[in-house]
């Protein structure tokens, strides 16, 4: 896919990631709350579901979700830093650092969950 010339820069990618992660998290949330609510039906019901999540494909999806959450957080921090602290050139480095932290969090989750 050829990226339009005027879009090929750090802050554009940061924005896309922020929007995509936000949308996916918003879709995921009701499901997340539903599963947690299974606790009302008792430990067994909840555990039944949690066992289903042991499947590798589900674990993979969970890693992605954790990365999305961390990415949305760092993207939001980028915005808040721009809007309330400063708009200097160092903000591009901040984008890169944010991306790095998200990945690190995802990896921490991955290594602890397998």
């Amino acid at each position, binding site marked *: 896919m050829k990226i339009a010339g005027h879009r090929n820069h750090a802050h554009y990618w940061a924005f896309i990631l922020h929007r995509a992660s936000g949308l996916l998290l918003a879709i995921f949330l009701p499901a997340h709350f539903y599963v947690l609510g299974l606790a009302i039906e008792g430990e067994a019901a909840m555990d039944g579901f949690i066992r289903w999540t042991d499947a590798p494909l589900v674990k993979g999806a969970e890693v992605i979700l954790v990365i999305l959450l961390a990415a949305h957080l760092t993207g939001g921090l980028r915005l808040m830093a721009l*809007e309330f602290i400063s708009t200097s050139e160092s903000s591009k480095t901040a984008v890169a650092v944010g991306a790095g932290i998200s990945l690190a969090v995802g990896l921490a989750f991955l290594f602890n969950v397998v």
Partner: protein
Amino acid sequence: MSNSIKVSVWRGRETGEFQSFDVPRQPSQTVLDIVTFIQRNIDPTLSYRFACRVGMCGSCAMTVNGKPRWTCRTHVDKVVEDGEIKISPLRNLKVVKDLTCDMTEFFDKMNKAEGKFHPTKTRNDDFDVVLPDDPTRQLAAQGIECIGCAVCYSACDVVEWNKDYLGPAALNRAWTLVNDVRDGGNKERLTAISGDSGCHACHSQQGCVKHCPKNLSPTRSIIGLKRATMKAALKGEI
């Protein structure tokens, strides 16, 4: 370095097609040189705009290989890809013909954003003293070099997605006036720039900053407007 460049130029209006020309390559050639060569030597029906041709007026802005630029300040060597260059009119504005676009909407939005001076004094009053190290004057100075070339407007994705979005240039101009102590129109101005399609629609993607030929930062001005509207809303002024 080969002797000629293959140039694709947009012909037509909103619908049309790219037409191909072979243009001889010259040292220190700019994209404006190429367009001028085509119009004078190959196809006199090609329509395009320019004026100063030395990077002062902003009239020659076009999309070159996907990026909005001043063609008089774009050296062919810097943008040619595999011996080819693609030239089209500025994005986000209606096409009049070929490489000329209709700037009406761009300037209308300057008005809508109250990007115009509201005087408070008459000829009988004394001058306002505005010292160069005055902090608000310095904030205004960061944005007043804008010459309204529409490169930022063309680079902005929110302008593409929200057709009423005022855009980086109009908001930047509004910010310089917010910081002008002689101006008396801030209540209307802050209301104008915080409506449905005002400063809050900006996501700080900074395409405007990346492409502004005068190295201005409309994003910084828009962030200033966000803070100003927040304070005004808390005080009940808007």
